[in-house]
């Protein structure tokens, strides 16, 4: 992984920058001790590590603003960091950059049931928002599997998903507003408790921009009333094709479940060995389908899904009778990553999205790729919205295996794009998929995206080296190549 060449002149000024940061953030919020910096050398993508030049942990918006203003004026790069749980290396430090950690901005500022909104600082965890409103029967819908640890600011930066996206949307559909600091140090507010901010929808662009456009210092999210009931079906299928057909037919019947998750055989076996969820071991594909809503609706729909599953050839059909049983159905799926971690020294988690109908085809071709690269793979899958998480099993201590795993992963993502899908459904591009962006986008596509970057950060000081494989200078991107001449389409009907 090639990162931008560190600026030696900036590194030489490290002590001066540390002093400037200490003037802004008093106390222990500036970390420059080399051992302590190692704590911050990676995020959830642990294959890549780089200690940051300095870590700064501001406590309020004014400090974030002052940090960015100083760095902007002094040409110092910034890497924003939330809880550090991201899986694509979006918070991977740079040797010549200040990592700005937002964990100390961790207060919930306002709970507004009348407007069904919560205002939180970016370091508040995803789960803490739900916990803050749970007593009143409310929750925050997007639930990435790291929800106990991941921060809401990071969720916005990555446009985080979760198992409930199919029905309730991704982060972008649940964020009402943000306060954000631009690289210049200017503080801006986008949206609020009202809907659809006027002007260009910058809130929409910020969401999922992976720390390239600004640092979020406050988030307003919408909260929902928890559904009256939730019931789940555990469905086992003798073939992946049958499982895929069931998924397509549920959607085709006009049913949008609260969650619809699939696992393949290796994932079923690994999770069953780990948590003993009671999963059948004689099936090739397992589906957990959850319906939520009033009891009459859930009972009605669960009946219909059961019929669809039977018609698709399900060999196991179980309905939860108790809440404990429902949670048991989920326990395997929710513990899939640690379960896989037990059966392999290392694993790499991929994150492509494909059209649902391509599921069986993609899994079959993935098995071929597994043979080709001589590495195992287990699949967990947000089946409802086509979001695959293949887990590639490898041993980093075996020479060459990491490289083979990376090649295998890249082949899987190319396959996703080839069948009409995309490189990443919810984990982000970061550094992990950066060099694959060309599989999905032309040079012109990426240049147009980077022109948006230039509107926010013309000097490329915010999180450089992430998302885009080539950093074009903004002046170069702005240049217009004109082709003078006659109107070149005499055949266009004109009036």
């Amino acid at each position, binding site marked *: 992984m090639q990162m931008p060449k560190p600026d030696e002149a900036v590194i030489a000024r490290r002590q001066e920058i540390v002093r400037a940061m200490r003037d802004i953030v008093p106390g222990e919020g500036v970390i420059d001790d080399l051992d302590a910096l190692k704590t911050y050398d990676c995020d959830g993508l642990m294959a890549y590590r780089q200690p940051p030049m300095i870590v700064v942990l501001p406590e309020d918006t004014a400090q974030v603003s002052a940090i960015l203003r100083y760095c902007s004026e002094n040409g110092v790069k910034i890497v924003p960091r939330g809880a550090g749980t991201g899986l694509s290396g979006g918070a991977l430090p740079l040797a010549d950059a200040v990592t700005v950690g937002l964990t100390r901005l961790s207060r919930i500022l306002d709970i507004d049931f009348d*407007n069904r909104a919560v205002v939180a600082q970016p370091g508040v965890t995803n789960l803490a928002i739900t916990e803050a409103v749970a007593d009143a029967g409310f929750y925050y819908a997007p639930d990435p599997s790291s929800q106990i640890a991941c921060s809401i600011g990071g969720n916005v930066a990555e446009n985080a998903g979760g198992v409930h996206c199919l029905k309730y949307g991704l982060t972008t559909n649940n964020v009402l507003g943000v306060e954000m600091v631009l690289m210049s140090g200017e503080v801006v507010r986008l949206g609020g*408790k009202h809907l659809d901010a006027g002007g260009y*929808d910058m809130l929409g662009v910020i969401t999922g921009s992976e720390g390239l456009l600004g640092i979020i210092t406050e988030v307003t999210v919408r909260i929902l009333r928890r559904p009256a009931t939730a019931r789940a079906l555990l469905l086992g299928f003798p073939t992946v094709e049958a499982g895929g057909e069931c998924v397509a037919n549920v959607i085709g019947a006009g049913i949008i479940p609260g969650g619809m998750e699939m696992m393949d055989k290796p994932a079923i076996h690994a999770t069953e060995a780990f948590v003993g969820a009671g999963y059948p071991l004689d099936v090739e594909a397992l589906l957990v389908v959850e319906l939520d809503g009033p009891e009459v609706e859930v009972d009605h729909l669960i009946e219909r899904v059961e019929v669809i599953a039977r018609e698709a050839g399900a060999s196991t059909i179980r309905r939860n009778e108790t809440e404990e049983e429902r949670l048991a159905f989920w326990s395997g799926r929710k513990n899939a990553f640690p379960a896989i971690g037990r059966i392999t020294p290392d694993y790499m988690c991929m994150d492509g999205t494909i059209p649902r109908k391509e599921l069986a085809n993609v899994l079959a071709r993935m098995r071929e790729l597994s043979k080709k690269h001589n590495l195992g793979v287990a699949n967990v899958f947000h089946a409802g919205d086509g979001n695959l998480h293949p887990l590639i099993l490898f041993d980093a201590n075996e020479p060459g295996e990491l490289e083979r795993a990376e090649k295998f992963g890249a082949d899987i993502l190319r396959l996703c794009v080839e069948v009409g899908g*995309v490189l990443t459904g919810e984990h982000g591009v970061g550094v992990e998929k950066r060099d694959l962006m060309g599989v999905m986008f032309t040079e012109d596509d990426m240049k147009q995206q980077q022109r948006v970057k230039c*509107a926010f950060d013309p000097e490329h000081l915010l999180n450089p080296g992430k*998302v885009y494989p080539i950093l074009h200078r903004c002046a170069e991107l702005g240049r217009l190549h*004109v082709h003078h001449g006659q109107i070149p*389409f005499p055949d266009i009907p004109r009036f």
Partner: protein
Amino acid sequence: MADTLRPETAVEVLDAVKWAASEETTLEVVGLGSKRGYGRPVEAAHTLDLSALGGITTYEPSELYLSCRAGTPMAEITAAVVEAGQMLAFEPPQATGGTLAGVIACNLSGPRRIMAGAARDHLLGFNAVSGRGEEFKSGGTVVKNVTGFDLSKLMAGSFGTLAVMTDLTIKTLPRPEKVRTVLARWRPDGVYDRAAMKAMSAALGSAHEVSAAAHVPAGLAQRSAVGRVSGPGGGVTGIRVDGPAPSAEHRAGELVGLMREFCTDVETLHSENSGTFWREVSESAYLERDGHQVWCLSVPPSQGAAVAIDILDNLHGEVLYDWGGGLVWMALEARDDAGAEVIRDVVERVGGHATLTEAAADVRDRVPVFHPQPAALSDVARRIKDGFDPKGILNPGRMATVD
């Protein structure tokens, strides 16, 4: 001479914009021209008419998406999704007709927006030609996609000032089997706007997945074609639920009970009446337009009535509330300044924005149609515009604050 270019393919659109960029001549980008009166008046040397660039290219109901050319009429899209038992969940207003690209470019969403998201949430991907005369694309056909910046959001609501979309992919969803509207009918003797806000807030804060909540004050409700809305003489608050038959019935029943805590006269509208009522709401059909200017305010829902009452203390007109109180439609007696200062002062006190959606062209030329942004934001907006359309050839003046 202002002439019209009418490309029939995406390549011809590219040629047209390239030519305009090289000549530094301006283009008004239109579909069927139905939304020309929305936004500031555009003065352009040429018209780029996309109405010949039509047709649905792919529609896969089980994959929940539809792709079409930019000039495809809404009527064609609506017919296709209805036939497949689906819908565009943001409930685009039908009255203005026009094209899908026009609806997306203006980010127009109906009553269902509060539950299902806005037009912008439904644009999964697009192909376009920037004002630089370059083709580019963003997004795809799947919902879960975080690959690169989400330019779909930027295109929605940009009023054709950044790029000319040639192809769009939008999300489709199953159409609910049954729809019920719980109707609280307030007494004719007074103003119940604030009580209605509380009632809507209670409904939206319930577990009943309310898909629309609107309040039509007395006087306006009497213009409804639905007898049970207009008949009793007072204002009405409508709460809509939908889903599988047993579920819609159950939710409606529960909501009748909830609404009775606020209002004694509560009943339920079924399919046809319910459909008519929400069509009227989504088209703000109740408003007196003759001699009036129309404003659309987006505010925190609980503040809707307070904002409207404040404004009506200073300006003459009437009000209609959608989105649980968060969308305030106002028809105000026409003035040269459209009352902009009064309205925006009130809105800014609670947080939100106000758009002048209907007024004579000379007024829209003078008064900022879109809510003015603070300098730091309008600077970013200008730089975004420069990145897409550095010569300002696309819809010049339409959004005023940026072009």
